[in-house]
């Protein structure tokens, strides 16, 4: 996790001091998408390699999906409700 923080801060610093070439920013979207696709592929590999998960994926997947959907919905609704007060967003 410290690696993640370091990478993030390093990215911000080299960008803020202006050593990143201008044309890099123009292609930033494409670069991000490419990295993300590699990451998602790796995530899929992780699942595919685990026989415990692939052998039972539909059963486990249903429960897992319900839990994740409820977590997402709950967190978004509470964030929305308190958002005005925390962040003062005008919408």
């Amino acid at each position, binding site marked *: 996790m410290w690696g993640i923080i370091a990478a993030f801060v390093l990215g911000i610093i080299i960008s803020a001091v202006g050593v990143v070439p201008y044309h890099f920013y123009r292609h930033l979207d494409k670069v991000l998408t490419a990295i993300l696709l590699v990451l998602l592929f790796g995530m899929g590999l992780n699942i595919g390699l685990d026989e415990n998960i692939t052998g039972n994926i539909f059963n486990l997947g249903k*429960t*897992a999906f319900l839990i994740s959907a409820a977590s997402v919905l*709950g967190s978004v609704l509470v964030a929305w409700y308190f958002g005005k007060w925390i*962040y003062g967003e005008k919408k």
Partner: protein
Amino acid sequence: MIIIIIGSVLLGILTGHLTESVFIQNNLDGINEYVLLLLVFVVGIDLGKNVETWYKLRKMGIKILLAPLVVIIGTLAGAFIVSFFVETSLQETLAISAGFGWYSMSAVLLKKLVSTEIGAIAFLANLFRELLAIFLIPFIVKIFGNFPAMAPGGATSMDTTLPFVSKYAGKEIALIGFISGLTLTFVSPFLISLLISLNI
């Protein structure tokens, strides 16, 4: 975009299922880690471009820590309600949801603390949380405004879902998301252990 995202996950699952490669099995976690670092580094470059974002955030002060708090409360509330409809117990459901999208950690921890099955569900549930966040952030911003965009990703608002928060809700919310994700990353292992140790 969504089709490409699902496609790369499915392609990964299929490849992982079929492959005999020892190299992949031994080095996958390490490689994934480096790709994640690269992603966060590039998002950092994106955010560092506009230094004024940081000044706007300073006026929020300590209130910024309420962002991860609402994510925790909302996540556990959602898990509490859904626990009546799934086969996992209330305690297990809460603990699984307390992974906040950090599927590798929560899966390993819950496999150790409870069972392989709960570990596998934790893995999938938290992976789905990350994918759901990626798909839903554009719609969440449209319906609920910018601020809630930092919530669905949970802990992943500091890495995988960060570029999406930044793209759809703006750089300021992306920074709040990063701080929220970071806090949740610290909190998650403790909260999972705590929930499992409770007698509920």
